[in-house]
């Protein structure tokens, strides 16, 4: 006995039934949500290159990569949190706290460079753990919990640093090592970029090849189903926020290299920028779908708009407008993809 073929979902044409074009596109995007941002990125680069051929040169691409590095790193943590159907508004605050604490300790307490860097990463992890505690044990909605910690961490860094910037010249060399140039072929990268790429490789492996990764997706997709299947949902949530915090701590170090200073002004609007990158990258705000490939694509798209429009001589007001439209388009596309006939 078999059910009629119309009950089977859109699969490989095995049923012999032709699905409509949009349904097949929908299925493709459903299983590979990063295809859509990839297309947009390629299109954007193509268009901006047509407007100003300087865009496709190694110099421009190198700049694109360097400018994207910090947000791309923060975006990994944000992606993990959003995959669990949460959101992390404290991303910038945690990173800045890590930056300023490590810099202040290096300058005032004379900590050696490596120790200060580890302090920064630990700070980020602890901040993330605190967020995870609020969400998993106290059961606060992530929006509320991280909104609170945003203020708390910002206040702590302000108390520590008095709002001042500390130049890289006043810090041990290791702390700004992220800015050291690493030419690769015709491209001009730096150590910070390489570290961010390493983060992507490690987290990407964990998400796609380990049980932990599967659990992250399951918890975001249907937390109750995950719980009933024996997954310790609270532990997964705690670990996600903690890993995110760890990544923010590493990003804090990359930031010092990039800005040439430990400054609270290095990533203004980090939470908005990281969330935008995640959303444009095709990860669903409702959890359970997406991944970090989309996030780096999303971050690259936003930055390519910045460079591309700048090369085209367009004023900044229009860039802000364009990015706004981009976000709406991305969320609408995500909504469409989610509409799957049961």
């Amino acid at each position: 006995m078999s059910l009629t073929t119309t009950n089977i979902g859109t699969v490989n044409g095995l049923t012999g039934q032709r699905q409509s074009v949009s349904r097949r596109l929908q299925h493709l995007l459903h299983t590979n949500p990063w295809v859509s941002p990839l297309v947009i990125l390629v299109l954007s680069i193509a268009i901006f290159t047509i407007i100003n051929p300087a865009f496709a040169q190694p110099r421009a691409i190198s700049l694109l990569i360097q400018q994207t590095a910090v947000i791309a790193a923060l975006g990994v943590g944000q992606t993990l949190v959003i995959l669990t159907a949460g959101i992390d508004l404290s991303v910038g605050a945690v990173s800045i706290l890590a930056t300023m604490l490590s810099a202040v300790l290096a300058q005032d307490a004379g900590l050696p460079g490596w120790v200060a860097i580890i302090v920064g990463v630990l700070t980020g992890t602890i901040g993330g753990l605190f967020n995870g505690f609020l969400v998993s044990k106290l059961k606060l909605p992530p929006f509320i919990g991280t909104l609170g910690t945003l203020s708390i961490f910002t206040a702590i860094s302000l108390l520590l640093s008095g709002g001042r910037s500390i130049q890289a010249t006043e810090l041990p060399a290791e702390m700004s090592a992220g800015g050291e140039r690493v030419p690769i072929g015709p491209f001009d990268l730096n150590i910070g970029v390489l570290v961010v790429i390493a983060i992507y490789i490690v987290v990407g492996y964990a998400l796609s090849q380990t049980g932990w990764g599967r659990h992250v997706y399951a918890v975001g997709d249907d937390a109750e189903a995950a719980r009933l299947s024996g997954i310790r949902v609270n532990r997964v949530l705690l670990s996600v926020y903690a890993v995110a915090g760890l990544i923010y701590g590493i990003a804090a170090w990359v930031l010092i290299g990039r800005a040439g200073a430990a400054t609270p002004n290095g990533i203004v609007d980090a939470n908005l920028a990281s969330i935008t990158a995640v959303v444009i990258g095709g990860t669903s705000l409702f959890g359970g779908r997406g991944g970090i490939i989309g996030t780096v694509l999303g971050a690259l798209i936003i930055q390519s708009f910045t460079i591309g429009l700048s090369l085209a001589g367009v004023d900044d007001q229009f860039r802000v407008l364009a990015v706004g439209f981009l976000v709406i388009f991305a969320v609408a596309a995500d909504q469409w993809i989610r509409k799957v006939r049961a």
Partner: protein
Amino acid sequence: MTSVFTSKVARRAFAAATAVAVGLTMSACAGDTAAPGADDEVKVTLILKDLVNPFFVALQKGAEAQAEKDGVNLTIASGKKDGDEEGQIQAIENAVLKGEDGILVLPAGPAVNSAITKAREAGLVVIALDTPPDPIDTTDQTFATDNFEAGKLIGEWAASATAGTDVVIALLDQFDDRIIQTDLNRDQGFLTGMGIDTADLGQNGDEAQTGTFSGGNYTIACQEATTGAEDGGREAMENCLTANSDINLVYTINEPSAAGAYKALQAAGLEKDVKIVSIDGSCEGVANVASGIISATSQQYPVNMATLGVETIASVVRGGDYPPVSDGLDFYNTGTALVTDATQDGVDSITSEEATEICW
């Protein structure tokens, strides 16, 4: 995974993609798209601190007007908000990439210095506007306003106008969560003009709460942040009045926040007993001086700054010279004048009528 890109799918996808492409191109064409390499035209990017502060808007308009006259192709860029150094770093890097001839920048902080240096090494002319960079030789030239001087002028006026009485001061700064040069210099300048010991000139809010100024005793009743806007000024003033209703002297970071502070005083019925001092010299602000809302303000000239900046950069790129720096300073001071209708001996000032002719 079998391919689902049948020709029909591909066609539909590219139709959608083309629509996006057209949209992007329309958006891009909204700005200047002069072909790179137009001969006598000088290409300059103006990098502001934010896009909303009326001071910077006036500066931008002034720059655009002068750019038209001097054959300069001007592109506007900005940080996301006052203090955004990373946004400015990106704008500088992009300008270099674009092959600009020069950059006019309002530095948001020291983190932009290395980007500026790299831009100069790449052959661009970089001129700072509004805020002198530290160290001063980071840029090729600087046209700025001495914000410390501006604060000092209103401080001296206030000290003279309140001499012989006890003053209760409210300090309404711009921010309390970050250090911005303008914010710092104006506040510390005001206190210096009053003859109050500022403790550390690099820090707001570290002064003694009570003590003496040049004309008597003072009490600092409160120090609040306004974000430089009218509603922020109102809220800050209300908080101050709740803490201490005897306030008789209010320092405000700029004229919008002064207007807001006045509204708060009015609501409390105290506007006649309180002197408000401010800095900016916008036409609205000067009108407020005329009507008595603001007792004294220091007028600055952002349009001058912008005009001089564009002129100079255009001339230097074409082979000309830099104008010399102002006496006793290491930058070109575009000037500050005290505007008040209640003149005080020993403090030079101009009237609100005179100020109206040169306001922005």
